[in-house]
């Protein structure tokens, strides 16, 4: 049944006044119409029926495309920030739209719109269709709803339903813990960002699948000052979690103290000793290196297009046998996890490097088809405005056997990397990552704290140099950028020893 759009608007319009006084936080899911699935949401709220979807897919294949797909997205993102002792601002952002994709061989046509009237969507379908100009007529399979196999989110008490005042309590606890850590703490800024994203995918092969994804992140940024000397510490926690997370897994107090501690330590930090040396990567956040150095070059698109250094190295030894690396989008409640990817594919844990040998790539639908491999559930996109790309989810270097303390003890003179601002890699395999805080290693001990160092290297040179792998594990929470699109990810690693790597800094 197709809901009448105009009637619907009238109904919501009159409900607004009442709802706004009852609830001060996202009341999009007005009590009378709480949808259980994204399909129900798009049908009841925006009047998009299965019949419409079928007609749009036909229109999209009207010029001879081989495959068509609709990606509907409705996302509500909230943010609250505390600074200078007050909640300075709160924000709410609604993203609504559909992206329509047509594939023909290696070619992609894409149109998108926020206008969910049938006319508006038809225009986007015709735009996407134009990538093809000839070819046989492809039959549209009848849409069948496919259920997801896993539930990797904590939707028990989603943040989207918690009140602004309960969010403010989290901010206040984090803020106060950071402020109280040390008299030299000068400024504290704490933000809580959460979103709920409804996704619905329908394609010409008859797949109809939906997902409802929560995402939360609490971020503390702390500046310490000592005379004219200033430093900034950062800490962050969250995932696809619910309200319970910050009272069990990670408390706001811990988060505030961590950022403050980093800022205070950095006040007394020295510059790194530049040049090639032995580097130990701490387990806490060093996953950023796995993400840059191994994850990106193993995304299928850059291998299919032969621009990754790994494209011709499948089944070859590329790393020390101590090294096993995989990506797993199905880890419960992790920031990079999903029940299905943005093409509706069910994800699976994907081995990339097994005991030093290259064994797999991260696949989306297009690359998998062209490479005659199977999709791994890593086709992701920033939103309805973007084409899907093969992307990482949660990338990990598997735990080893060495005691982390022994790893440090084995280094006579070197550098210990602890926290990061981020990293970057070129397809050619040259990567860099920026260390916010580290330590000098002298005679097997951590000595002076170090600020603002850069680690650079080339994947094929560095992977064989990983000579010790710790028996611990840590996770970096990040946002990955690729082709102008952002994606939430994590990257994990145990403590690692790298025999030789280039450290940059000022001397």
């Amino acid at each position, binding site marked *: 049944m197709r809901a009448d759009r105009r009637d619907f608007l009238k109904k919501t319009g009159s409900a607004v006044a009442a709802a706004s006084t009852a609830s001060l936080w996202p009341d999009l899911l007005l009590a009378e119409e709480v949808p259980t699935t994204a399909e129900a949401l798009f049908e009841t709220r925006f009047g998009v029926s299965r019949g419409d979807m079928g007609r749009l897919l036909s229109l999209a294949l009207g010029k001879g495309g081989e495959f068509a797909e609709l990606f509907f997205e409705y996302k509500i993102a909230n943010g609250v920030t505390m600074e200078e002792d007050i909640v300075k601002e709160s924000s709410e952002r609604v993203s609504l739209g559909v992206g329509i994709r047509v594939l023909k061989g290696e070619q992609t046509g894409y149109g998108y719109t926020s206008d969910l009237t049938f006319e508006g969507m038809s225009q986007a379908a015709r735009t996407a269709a134009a990538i093809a100009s000839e070819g046989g007529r492809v039959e549209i399979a009848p849409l069948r709803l496919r259920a997801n196999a896993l539930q990797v989110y904590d939707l028990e008490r989603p943040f989207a339903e918690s009140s602004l005042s309960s969010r403010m309590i989290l901010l206040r606890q984090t803020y106060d813990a950071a402020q109280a850590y040390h008299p030299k703490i000068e400024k504290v800024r704490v933000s809580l960002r959460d979103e709920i994203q409804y996704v619905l995918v329908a394609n010409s092969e008859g797949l109809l699948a939906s997902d409802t994804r929560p995402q939360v992140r609490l971020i503390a940024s702390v500046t310490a000052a000592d005379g004219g000397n200033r430093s*900034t510490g950062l800490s962050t926690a969250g995932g696809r979690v619910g309200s319970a997370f910050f009272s069990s897994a990670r408390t706001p107090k811990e988060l505030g103290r961590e950022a403050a501690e980093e800022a205070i330590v950095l006040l007394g930090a020295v510059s790194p000793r530049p040049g*090639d040396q032995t580097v130990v990567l701490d387990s806490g956040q060093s996953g950023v290196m796995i993400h840059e150095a191994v994850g990106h070059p193993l995304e299928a698109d850059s291998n299919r297009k032969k621009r990754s250094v790994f494209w011709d190295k499948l089944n070859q030894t590329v790393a020390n046998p101590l090294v096993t690396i995989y990506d797993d989008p199905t880890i419960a409640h992790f920031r990079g996890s999903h029940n299905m990817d943005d093409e509706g594919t069910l994800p699976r844990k994907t081995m990339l490097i097994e005991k030093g040998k290259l064994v797999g790539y991260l696949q989306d639908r297009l690359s998998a088809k062209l490479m005659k491999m199977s999709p791994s559930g890593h086709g992701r996109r920033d939103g309805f405005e973007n084409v899907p790309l093969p992307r990482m989810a949660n990338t990990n270097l598997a735990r080893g056997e060495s005691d982390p303390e022994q790893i440090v003890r084995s280094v006579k003179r070197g550098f210990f990397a602890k926290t990061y601002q981020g990293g970057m890699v070129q397809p050619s395999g040259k990567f860099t990552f*920026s260390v916010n805080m580290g330590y000098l290693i002298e005679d097997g001990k951590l000595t002076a704290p170090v600020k603002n*160092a850069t680690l650079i290297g080339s994947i094929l040179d560095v992977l064989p140099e990983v000579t010790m792998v710790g028996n611990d594990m840590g996770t970096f929470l990040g946002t990955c950028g690729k082709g102008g699109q952002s994606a939430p990810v994590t990257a994990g690693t145990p403590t690692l020893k790298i025999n030789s790597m280039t450290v940059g800094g000022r001397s």
Partner: protein
Amino acid sequence: MMRDTSLTGLAESLVAYGTRRGADQVEVAIRAGSNFSASIREGELETLVEAGFRELEVKLIVDQKVATEASSDLSEATLKRLIDNGIGRARLSGADPFAGLPEKEPVKVRAEALDIFDEAVVDMSPESKIAAARRVEAICLGDKRIRRSMGAGFGTTIETLYLANSNGFSDAFRQTACSNGVYLQVGEPDNLISEGKYDYSRNLEGLRSPEDIAAEAIDRSTRLIGARKVPTQNVPVVLEPEMSAELLQFLASCVDGRGVYRKQSFLADRIGERVAGANVNVWDDGLMPGAPGAKPFDREGVPLRKTAVIEKGVLKSFLLDSYSARKLGMKPTGNGAGPNNLYLASGKDSPADIIGSVDEGLLLTGSIGFGAVPTTGDISRGAFGIWIEGGELAYPVAGITIGANLGTLLQQVEMIGDDLDHRRYVNGPTIKVAEMTIGGT
């Protein structure tokens, strides 16, 4: 494309609605327009994206308490609900005496005088856009040293910004932008280099020809073939315009009012002080016709202007939105969206003379990484370039890092080139700085 009067009407009616519902101040901004992008790889059209977009943002202030709302769903029901929600949430925030819309200032320069909209961009057919990108790539692939194309692309944006607020401001302007370029891969399979060239312009006539873009992309990549590491040392460094622009981009984040009032900049509290050599003049001129960031007014309705940031080495002004201006007891500079057209003023030296003056040092042509900390001014990044020996370009280098401090670098700009242009939001000519630390073998 005509200005869509219904969106002006929508912006104004939402301001009125917010006021009626109890907000003391309301600001509504709407961006609407269309995007096009075509990417070509190995001669074939790979991806074609075309779409119309609309995005609305509302700022609500109640009793000096702020909330913001944004939506790409412009249905009346959603927008009214968001405003009601925002007013409710604002009441729960903390009162901030500095919150508020900017004071109304007349917008004296009209969009028409700024040459930021080009009908030719609107009229250009998809076929000719695709052909232009294809041409760039074909020329590059004709050069045997190019191992692979990473893709060429042509893009256009056509957009109108509507802004209305409860201080009686209501205005709109439209703008266009186009780009064309390519990324290439060169070198040996296990020592690949990726480089390329993209050009940007407000108007089609200003966009460089496919031949020019291809020639520069070929030169920028092939000159790095066979790059090697150099030993760790401190040397003078020459920054090409793209790299001095990157340095200026870092300066822009250090003079951004929001970072300054948070004390997250080494330049906070230093207005009126000598922070650079007397030869350093940095301006932000948002009214330069045709510049990529030129506009009549910023995201808050504050008219753009020409601001002296550093004049003869003295720090004169930060880049301020209305909030950070009020926090710092200053006037907004029309930088609600960051730098508009920030640049280091041109000098008299030719790039060749600058390179010729270096006995041993680095010509910096590319860098990667995030290593730039406004709080301290420290810079630490991965770098690519050409080694200079006896005033001559000797051999390419890669796999090295550069380390420096912006505060020190600004004092040590030894030569400034005559090759400034305004093709991005932040621009610089070729410059020579006395010393950076190179991290290598």
